[in-house]
């Protein structure tokens, strides 16, 4: 157990932008919400999975909606407190812990708002080890755990309690509900026991985010290249450095789909690279050959500052380093690849582990 204060939160937030893999929403808003809660209620305990009793009840807490809406219709602490109260009212159970569903993007830190207000600890784990767009794309699904009963609340005072047949149905109803709310709601989902969690969650996800954030911050403070520090310290693989020449972004089925085409810089001069994204970056080609795919992580980072650039914002002219990181071993199984591999997103290619796509060193 350790206490998360404002300084730890800053590093965690910065690291979560990397784990967002180009998606996951703007963590700045999540950080403000969590920081506000820490200022009002004090630092929040973060516990390891091993400290959680097998019979304890825990649940994922997340903001759900369109990133472009969340920056405008800013979330309120009230909903993060109410969502757990409503879940307890509907299920008749008491929840002893909360946990992020994704350590990438906005939702890495939103559970701290619930934890601080309700006086429960946050668990140092998540259901993805990154960010994914669908609420059924979590490691508990691989173990047959149910997303429901879940509760969704919005700032207009509505609550939606759902029991669904499958997690895919849960996703469909959640999406309809969030649209009705005005595209910004708060959800408590995947209620589970400590024993379930130890089996199915990605351990240490928030520690990973915090360590990545610390690496980037210290590199900047010491005037070292943040991207190099990330690659050296966190199993990162430098896939490409280049300039964004062309971005094709379109909207289909409610997702941001598209590609960013890069031309090489420095050692990659003369080579091309394409990032394919659907909210998150999901596949990468070097000179027409697939070198990395989901569920491994892919980040475009501004070369000099190391600032991760979301797929929603990548634009012509950005100078980026593309860094890959291996996904949690749970995702690299047959079932994991079926749930969140390239074919699940409509890319008719085989999974390529990111280590295999490392840039051949020149000279």
């Amino acid at each position, binding site marked *: 157990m350790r206490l998360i204060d404002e300084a730890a939160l800053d590093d965690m937030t910065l690291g979560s932008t990397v784990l967002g893999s180009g998606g996951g929403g703007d963590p700045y*808003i999540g950080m*403000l*919400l969590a920081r*506000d809660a820490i200022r009002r209620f004090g630092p929040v305990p973060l516990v390891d999975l091993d400290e959680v009793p097998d019979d304890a009840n825990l649940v994922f807490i997340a903001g*759900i*909606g*369109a*990133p*472009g*809406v969340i*920056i*405008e*219709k*800013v*979330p*309120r*602490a*009230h909903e993060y407190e109410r969502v757990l109260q409503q879940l307890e009212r509907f299920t008749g159970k008491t929840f002893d812990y909360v946990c992020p569903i994704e350590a990438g993007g906005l939702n890495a830190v939103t559970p701290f708002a619930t934890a601080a207000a309700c006086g429960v600890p946050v668990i140092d784990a998540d259901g993805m080890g990154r960010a994914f*767009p669908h609420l059924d794309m979590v490691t508990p699904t691989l173990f047959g755990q149910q997303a429901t009963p879940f509760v969704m609340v919005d*700032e*207009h005072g509505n609550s939606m309690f759902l029991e669904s047949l499958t997690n895919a149905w849960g996703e469909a109803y959640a*999406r*309809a509900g*969030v*649209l009705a709310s*005005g*595209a910004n709601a708060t959800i408590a989902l995947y209620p589970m026991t400590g024993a379930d969690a130890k089996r199915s969650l990605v351990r240490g996800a928030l520690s990973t985010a915090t360590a990545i954030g610390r690496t980037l911050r210290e590199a900047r403070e010491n005037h070292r290249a943040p991207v190099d520090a990330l690659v050296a310290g966190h199993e990162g693989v430098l896939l490409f450095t280049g*300039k964004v*020449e062309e971005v094709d*972004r*379109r*909207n*289909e*089925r*409610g*997702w*941001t789909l598209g590609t960013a085409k890069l*031309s090489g*810089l420095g050692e990659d*001069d003369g080579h091309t690279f394409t990032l394919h994204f659907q*909210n998150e970056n999901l596949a990468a080609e070097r000179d027409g050959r697939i070198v990395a795919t989901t569920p491994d992580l892919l980040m475009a980072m*501004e070369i*000099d*500052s190391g*600032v991760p*650039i979301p797929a*929603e*914002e990548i*634009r012509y*002219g*950005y*100078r980026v380093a593309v860094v890959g990181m291996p996904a949690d071993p749970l995702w690299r199984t047959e079932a994991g690849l079926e749930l969140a591999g390239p074919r699940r997103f409509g890319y008719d290619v085989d999974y390529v582990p990111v280590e295999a796509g490392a840039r051949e060193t020149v000279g």
Partner: protein
Amino acid sequence: MSLRLGIDVGGTNTDAVLLDGRDVVAATKSSTTEDVTLGILNALEVVLTDVDPAEVSSVFIGTTHFINAIAQARGLEQVAVVRLATPPQSLLPMLDWPDHLTGIVGEHFYVCPGGAQFDGAQMDDVDEVRLRGIAKQIAEAGIQHVALSGVFSTVNPEHEELAATLLLEELPDITVTRSAAVGRVGLLERENATILNAALRTLAGRVIDGLEQVVARAGISAPILLSQNDGTVMTLDRAREYPIFTIASGPTNSMRGAALLTGIDDAVVVDVGGTTCDIGLLQRGFPRESTVAMSLAGVRSNFRIPDVLSIALGGGTVIEENGAVVGPASVGFRITEEAKVFGGDILTFTDIAVAAGAESIGDPVLVADVSASVRDTALRIAAERVIEAVEKTKLTSTDTKVIVVGGGGPLLAVLPGLEDVIIPAHAGVANAVGAAYAEAGGEVDRVYNLAGTTRSEILTAAREEAIALAVKAGARAGDVRIVDAEDIPLTHLGGGQAVRVRVKAAGPFHDFTTTDKEGR
């Protein structure tokens, strides 16, 4: 003859130029004075020596007044912030401001039901009773300036407009800045810019009155326009209401000036000052914008500003260790006393460049004793830094022209590997030239509902609206072009019902005779 007068009021120098079409007919550089109007008057007297003031058809002013006021926290007033949203709000205004600014602007926050959804539908009705109560509290606190924000007011501004009318009914003597008129999507950042604008309104009135008076004293009766962040201009009446739109005009003007002085619209521009070189990219005659939103003296905003890379190399940069250490220390504006060419005893980049045969500044004899090895070592290091920064700034590996402007511009001509740079005549007053070369612009930034229409129909409508706004602002109808366009779908909404569109159009003023430009 119709002449355009450009004035640039910087922290150190006040520059003025007269343009006849694209030609510079007079230019001067003078020191910025404590009372800036004196410096402007001095500069105007010089450029108007051989010109009848009646021939000046328009006056363009770029000023750092307002960004300096924010940076130094001087001349700012208290602000009451009214947010139209669902109470209670957790992420309050000014959440992330530096303490010294919060102390001056105060923390007067009020939340009133109101605001819109992403598709423009009303969220809650504006609670008029509560708003009148808020007005009473603002009056009791004796606050003169209100910053008004509403959720998704960029999509549907009706609530902000209604609330502004109501507040002004109750408090006829206050100013109200509506966020939809100031910023883009992103409530907290837009609110920040709105609050800063409200805090600057009293100062803006004073400064702009001063600018009007000094131009009149010089015998000029032409309309006066103020440079904005994006290379377009606004009227003084609008600037009184929106001083915040001037804050990033400095780097924009120097890059636009480089374009006019060379006739080149796509190039890397290096602006050499006393302490730094600011390096940016011109694309189609405008600076490339930064990928990260601008922080104004520690306050997050969502203004995009020119993507400028600063390196510690300028005319006053100190050279030590036999040439092996170049900067970052600089003698800055004291260069005329401390550099060797001016009889001082500190070796600066200016001394090294003059010793290498650059355009003579001060007395070249005074640097005759600088050894060749010190000179060449320092030149090599300086050249490496500039070349590396230029390479970083370029977007393609193809040959990009490099234009050098600013007071220290001629110094770069002697750097090895930079023999091909273009240093135009009047490079030293490129800022004022850029101010005079400003355009009229129009911008649309809104979330559109896709129901019953298509993306391409929406984009076409947005482009037409932006062009119409530019024409309304004074651009010649046939010459307006789209300078920036992007559309970002709002995601995670099954079916994709909304898209955020941003389009910027700009064009030369009626009275600006353009020659055919390449690449347009």
